[in-house]
């Protein structure tokens, strides 16, 4: 079957002739009828041609001192026949000089191996040659020879394992495929021929000899087309022909040190990718940015599963320092509702390919302006049935703690601050956290034959967080069936992914409903253990109420909104988030002719998300009413996608190859949300959490919302190749989006296009021997984005039975138009020293214009928000990756690779008539604001600065107390550059991998530190008190210099707090960490049943090599656009260590 696969390779169709074309017409039309019935489509395909070939063509050849490979290539080109050979045959072959005319293939081959006998067989459209074993005495044995178990490992040209390579015993149906580590085991007789094949690589044949442990290297395809890359729409292309940058991450890299959200495993492994996990802990969402931020809406890339877009809808995220979500007017408890990505099981993923630039993704249109992350899931394989089991157990501890003090007591009784006398209190913070555990188990079954293959997997995840009561559980099912019908012509690929998740008490960030505020700020000197009994029986209310040092209903103590008893929050402010995700897709593919095929796909992605917050009576009164609070949030999201693509691949003239894809697609999104929040209206009866118990008043929050969007598209892409040395890529697409209804663009839609060019320099000009490969590429793309649903037809709102007049509308009545992003990219790829050193470098620049904004309108305009297309944001940067096989000696190997990313962002223009500034996170009454400001960069942090004298020194009053000045720019959280350094060392049966990841530059703010300082509970405040105060050299407002020491409490209560002088709480975000470390051991097995046992010690986020901020600056309070670069009592990053075990049956 490998050979059949080989025959389908594009190479073989070169050189069809007119005669054969005529012969094949009738057959094509006949087949066509079936296609028509199948898809009711493509009536216009009336006459297409193809070429059928058998061997026997003749070859005319004149070469001088040419490598044998080159001769093979020329023979293939002339005859359309694939030549299959084992790499070992070519070892030591000298260049040949051949001058023949109209001779047979065999004759030419004979000339290539002048002194070596070989076998020559024709299989289909391929010619298989293999060396004849040296003449050995043939001993005839009468008894059947017992089969040997042959084990082996298949490596690619870089020495990396190839998973999923096929191994088959020639002439039998016996076959298997390699596991994630490239290993296989098969029973064969001595003398049998093993055929080893993998798509994109030259198949090899090995004769079974005495060696039962084989290491086989596959070379890139003989035609040097290189590995196949999954590109937009799932189209497989040869890496060589790509004109833009992509990077692939294999299953092994995702699963060695496993993460609940597979996207987190990409951190540090892909140049150009910046990943910020949410601070909400397990199962939380991630913020992924490719090549910089451009928009105030979606900045995250599109996720695609097996070619079909997936709905990674952004859900609820905190929007302010308190951690509330829902925006102005809504005090909905803030939360991270996770994302759909976390529902994927990393074990089911074959590979992830990152298409970084707009050129790569232009085919996906609007949604892909920020790049695409292509997820290829596993398929069943022909061969023996196989079961894979893996289990992963890790324990988690906080990676760091805030630096707190226990030496100074509460200021005075009932005071919230700890600015009091000296005294010692025990550390109540560290013991509060528990050891978290994460257990991930996967069982995967594969089986199949040539016609039908099945893959089924089940996995479960059980997690206990470091925060007590925080739990996360998930079950994932994946079923994939690939089959062929009608003479193996129609291929059907069906995939169903289902997962169900439940998160109890997912930690929240911000000041509200966060156990960490009460924990950290607890006045020193009081007994924390006393409040482990978080409730007491209240005579007054005949129920259990909150017991906290300043919250007690019976004593009329109401406390403050920013802290409660942490245990009360965990047990009586409970939240449960549930998520079900179903993704099902069906792909039909049919070859109309040998060079033309049609594919139809459909998918449905449905996502249910349910969240409930139950806050019992006596919860702090700002956060809940007298009888408690009940929040009910239900989201249903559906994405339907369908496309039909016609694909062709042929040559237009000698040396000129041509392939194209043309098609149409429809993408339909729907989202409906039912949101109820009793806050403000109270519950009818205390502590009954049902919708029926909501008090019906105008204050009750009943906010149904929804979203509808349908995008219809047509697209075409074509690649022209000249002699496999120069490629030209052209793409065009037009989208019609429902969100542009009621505008002039409703009917016309908006176009995209991209063009790319590359040259394989190493093939074009003669290169020194140490250069194996060199490529230079350029591309340009224009993509766009539509506007927000419903924005072209603003409506009155009716929520909670209350009317709200239209307050938002298009800017000055102008119509909304699509966004316009233009990107340029230039890159180069090189391989040196026998492919041991590889280098990939990309430079890019993107100009994004006409972004959709919801700008604060001048109040006099009659509206409060304008919908407007405005702005010009530029991103430019570089991405580089270098990989080197440092050591390759027998069983010892060391591969090292380095990824570098740098992105610079500049806001060139932003509607100057509206102030040239857009606040992503509004300051409101706090002194943190995230802005896009003309002349600045996306996401600049603004806050309150010190009042300063002209010489730059801070201004103080006559007592030395610093003065708060104006709001101003404080820094930008985006790193100047990112680096990821990956190492893999193999020694015998051991594999060690280490990933060191660094982010350099950028500034972040810690409101946590500001509040801890204000309350006098941070270590730094104790140090200051021990030193007699804070030394200040400053200028007096009244004139003259001031130098001296001011009391620590005066200083820290002035600069500290969420509304203090936040300039003081900016930190350098540079951090370097050992992100992943694993030591794997392959357990030698003698068992016939269990194979490929591997045990690994794994660690994640082990330690920081460098960190300046008081928290992990990589954490993001929100994975939306807001609240970047700020920490408000987020849960510390966890350090995970554990064991992973995998085996196959």
């Amino acid at each position: 079957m490998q050979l059949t696969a080989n025959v389908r390779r594009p190479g073989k169709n070169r050189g069809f002739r007119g005669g054969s074309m005529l012969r094949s017409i009738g057959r094509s039309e006949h087949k066509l009828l079936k296609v028509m019935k199948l898809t009711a489509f493509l009536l216009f395909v009336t006459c297409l041609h193809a070429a059928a070939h058998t061997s026997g063509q003749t070859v005319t050849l004149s070469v001088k001192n040419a490598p044998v490979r080159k001769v093979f290539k020329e023979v293939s080109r002339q005859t359309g026949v694939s030549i299959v050979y084992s790499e070992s045959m070519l070892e030591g072959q000298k260049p040949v000089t051949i001058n023949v005319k109209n001779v047979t293939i065999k004759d030419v081959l004979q000339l290539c191996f002048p002194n070596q006998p070989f076998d020559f067989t024709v299989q289909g459209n391929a010619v298989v040659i293999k060396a004849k074993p040296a003449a050995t005495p043939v001993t005839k044995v009468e008894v059947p020879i017992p089969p040997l178990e042959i084990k082996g490992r298949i490596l690619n040209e870089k020495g990396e394992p190839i998973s999923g390579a096929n191994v088959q015993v020639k002439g039998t149906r016996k076959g298997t495929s390699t596991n994630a580590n490239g290993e296989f085991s098969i029973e064969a007789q001595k003398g049998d021929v093993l055929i080893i094949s993998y798509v994109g690589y030259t198949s090899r044949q090995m004769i079974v000899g005495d060696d039962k442990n084989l290491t086989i290297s596959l070379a890139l395809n003989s035609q040097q087309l290189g590995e196949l890359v999954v590109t937009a729409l799932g189209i497989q292309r040869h890496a060589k022909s790509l004109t833009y940058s992509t990077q692939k991450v294999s299953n092994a890299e995702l699963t060695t040190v496993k993460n609940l959200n597979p996207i987190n495993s990409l951190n540090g492994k892909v140049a150009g990718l910046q990943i910020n996990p949410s601070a909400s802990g397990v199962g939380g969402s991630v913020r992924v940015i490719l090549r910089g931020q451009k928009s105030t809406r979606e900045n995250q890339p599109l996720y695609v599963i097996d070619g079909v877009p997936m709905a990674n809808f952004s859900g609820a995220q905190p929007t302010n320092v308190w951690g509330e979500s829902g925006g102005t007017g809504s005090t909905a408890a803030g939360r991270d509702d996770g994302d759909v990505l976390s529902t994927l099981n990393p074990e089911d993923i074959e590979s992830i390919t990152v298409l970084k630039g707009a050129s790569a993704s232009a085919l996906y249109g609007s949604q892909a302006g920020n790049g695409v992350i292509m997820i290829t899931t596993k398929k069943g394989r022909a061969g023996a049935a196989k079961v894979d089991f893996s289990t992963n157990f890790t324990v988690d501890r906080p990676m760091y703690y805030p630096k707190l003090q226990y030496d100074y007591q509460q200021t005075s009784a009932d005071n919230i601050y700890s600015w009091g006398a000296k005294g010692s209190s025990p550390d109540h913070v560290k013991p509060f956290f528990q050891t978290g555990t994460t257990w991930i188990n996967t069982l995967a079954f594969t089986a199949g034959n040539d016609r039908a293959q099945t893959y089924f997997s089940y996995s479960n995840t059980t997690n206990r967080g470091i925060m007590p009561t925080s739990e996360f559980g998930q079950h994932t099912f994946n079923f994939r069936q690939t089959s062929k019908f009608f003479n193996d012509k129609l291929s059907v690929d069906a995939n169903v992914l289902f997962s169900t998740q439940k998160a109890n008490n997912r930690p929240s960030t911000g000041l509200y409903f966060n156990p960490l505020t009460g924990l950290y700020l607890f006045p020193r000197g009081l007994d924390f253990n006393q409040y482990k009994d978080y409730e007491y029986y209240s005579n007054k209310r005949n129920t259990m109420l909150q017991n906290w040092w300043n919250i007690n209903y019976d004593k009329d103590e109401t406390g403050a909104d920013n802290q409660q008893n942490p245990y009360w929050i965990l047990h009586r402010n409970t939240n449960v988030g549930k998520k079900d995700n179903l993704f099902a897709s069906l792909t039909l593919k049919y070859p109309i002719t040998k060079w033309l095929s049609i594919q139809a796909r459909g998918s449905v992605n449905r996502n249910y998300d349910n969240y409930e917050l139950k806050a019992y009576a006596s919860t702090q009164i700002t956060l809940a009413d007298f009888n408690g609070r009940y929040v009910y949030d239900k989201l249903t999201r559906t994405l339907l996608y369908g496309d039909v693509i016609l694909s062709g691949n042929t040559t237009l003239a000698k040396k000129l190859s041509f392939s194209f894809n043309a098609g149409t697609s429809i993408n339909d999104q729907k989202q409906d949300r039912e949101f109820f929040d009793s806050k403000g209206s109270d519950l009818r009866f205390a502590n009954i959490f049902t919708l029926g118990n909501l008090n019906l008043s105008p204050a009750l929050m009943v906010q149904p919302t929804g979203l509808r969007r349908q995008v219809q598209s047509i697209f075409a892409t074509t690649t022209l190749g000249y002699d496999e040395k120069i490629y030209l890529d052209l793409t065009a697409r037009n989208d019609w989006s429902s969100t542009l209804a009621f505008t002039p663009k409703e009917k016309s839609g908006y176009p995209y296009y991209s063009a790319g060019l590359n040259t394989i320099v190493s093939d074009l000009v003669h290169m020194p021997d140490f250069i194996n490969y060199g490529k230079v590429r350029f591309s340009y793309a224009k993509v766009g984005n539509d506007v927000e649903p419903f924005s072209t037809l603003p409506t009155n709102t009716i929520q909670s039975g209350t009317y709200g007049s239209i307050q938002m509308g298009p800017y000055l009545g102008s119509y909304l138009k699509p966004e316009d992003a233009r990107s340029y990219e230039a890159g180069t790829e090189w391989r040196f020293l026998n492919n041991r050193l590889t280098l990939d470098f990309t430079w890019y620049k993107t100009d994004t214009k006409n972004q959709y904004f919801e700008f604060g309108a001048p109040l006099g305009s009659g509206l409060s928000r304008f919908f407007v297309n405005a702005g010009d944001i530029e991103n430019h940067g570089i991405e580089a990756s270098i990989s080197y096989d440092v050591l390759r000696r027998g069983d010892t190997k060391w591969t090292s690779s380095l990824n570098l990313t740098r992105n610079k962002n500049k806001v060139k223009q932003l509607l100057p008539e509206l102030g040239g500034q857009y606040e992503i996170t509004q300051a409101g009454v706090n002194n943190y604001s995230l802005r896009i400001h003309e002349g600045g960069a996306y996401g600049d942090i603004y806050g309150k600065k010190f009042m300063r004298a002209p010489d730059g020194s801070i201004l103080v009053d006559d007592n030395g107390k610093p003065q708060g000045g104006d709001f101003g720019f404080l820094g930008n959280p985006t790193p100047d550059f990112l680096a990821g350094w990956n190492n893999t060392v193999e020694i015998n049966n051991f594999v060690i991998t280490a990933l060191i990841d660094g982010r350099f530059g950028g500034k972040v703010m810690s409101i946590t530190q500001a509040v801890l300082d204000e309350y006098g509970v941070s270590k730094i405040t104790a140090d200051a008190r021990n030193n007699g105060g804070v030394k200040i050299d400053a200028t007096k407002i009244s004139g003259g210099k001031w130098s001296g020491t001011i009391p620590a409490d005066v200083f820290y209560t002035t600069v500290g707090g969420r509304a203090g002088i936040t300039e003081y709480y900016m930190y350098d975000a540079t951090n370097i960490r050992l992100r992943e470390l694993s030591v794997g051991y392959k357990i030698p097995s003698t068992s016939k049943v269990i194979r490929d046992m591997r045990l690994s010690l794994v660690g994640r986020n082990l330690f920081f090599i460098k960190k300046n901020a008081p928290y992990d600056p990589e954490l993001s309070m929100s994975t939306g656009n807001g609240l970047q670069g700020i920490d408000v009592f987020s849960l510390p990053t966890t350090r995970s260590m554990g064991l992973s075990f995998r085996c196959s049956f």
Partner: protein
Amino acid sequence: MKNNIAKIFSSIAAVAIIGSSCTKNFKEINSNPYGATNDQLSADYALVVAQLQEAEKSIYVYQPAWVTQLQQNLMGDVYSGYMMSPTPFRGNSNNLTYDLVDGWNVWALDPAYSSASGSVMSPISNVEATTKAAVPDLYAMAKIIKVEAMHRVSDIFGPIMYSKYKTRADDGGYDYDSQQDAYTNFFNDLNEAITILTPLRTQASNDIFKNADLAYGGSYAKWLQFANTLRLRLALRIVKADPAKAKAEGEAALANPGGLLSAAADNFNVNIGATDHPLNTINNAWGDIRMGAPMESILTGFNDPRLAKYFVPATDAVVAGKYKGIRNGINIDAKSRYQSYSALATFPSKIQLMTAAEAWFLKAEAALRGWTGAGSAQTDYESGITTSFNQYALSDSVKKYIADDISQPAPYLDPKEITPGENDIKTGSPWLSTITIKWDDGDAFERKLERIITQKWISIYPDGQEAWSEFRRTGYPKLFPVVVNTSGGKISTTAFIRRINIPADEYLTNPQGVKRAVATLSGPDNGGTRLWWDK
């Protein structure tokens, strides 16, 4: 070969035709199923009525309570001396200590136009446009609501966007009316409304608005009384800036046959139904507001029986059982220090924006100034007190109160002050008034005015916004200056805060308009500059 390419492209074209033929549902898809278009709200004139009601509710935003806190409470309610917050917001550097917080003050401006939590001008301008010809009575009510809401805003900032609202200037700016122009326009609008309503006053009410009107159930007679009283209020407001205009407008108000508000039942109260009064939330739930020191000084000094209706005794051990207020703008280290001083008494679910008692005191001042139709100052003054007592069901004690010619505001002592003596207003302090209750026709003009304004101040509680305006205009009642002034020299401690600066958002989004607006001020755009009527 050419042939093949042609076919390929014809294929693409065919796909294109199929693909592009289905945009006909786009309008439907892009119509928000959870909103309502204007057309969908045509039944029962729902759109007009809903917009009128929305504006009525947004004069004083009551939901959510934190908007009230920023729009009214941490501003006029405190600057009027009624209340003070025990909470040291922002390290005790905030509006209350004259460090004006843009993030707060923007809530005094936005709901006056349009915001997620309230809108006045935006719905009113729609109502005006659609009702002028068709339903003039609703048009008149819309005008009255607009003036009531917007004079409060002008009294905070000075210039406001009013007559040129929604009109974009050539340079893109939205122009403000100077405060003088704004007041001229208020009078014109009121006059227009009064002209429409005067002949209707004998009819019952507008059928459309009857059930939606949260104040007067659509009653023409009441709306007319309210408009007349409002006109008198505004006339007196400008009495120093433009005495002739003030007199003309005031006398026109007094002469209208519809009359003024006269009994407590006439009060302009926005009924907020099942929603709790936001001051209850701010006071009880959050503990963010307490009695002000001047309230303690004046009400206890006067032995005013309304004291128990307005406040509850302190629970702090040091002053337990007493009525204890907090002095404005003092040193506060922690909320717990003053949280147990006197809290506010619970308010019913009504937003009180004008009382009949006020109408009597306005009339008393008009009489004092000799305006035609104002009657006797003493009678008006005493009727004001009586009406206020009636409002709180205290009519039994009113006689004795009116006759009290001895009681004076009491000294204020703060037993919990951080630095001893810093908050105290002792006997003999220039900040302590010697005004008494009983009317004395022999008193000088200024003392009579102080007496009227002091009683008005007591009676219109808790509308701090109006009380602060009258304090700025007249200097009465005598209030205590702030102890901590963090304005950076912009606001004089002894002259008190005079206004609020225009928030930064407006500078950002409407730079040209703001520039011209600020030019109409008598000084820089800060809290120390006096308004036009504040001479």
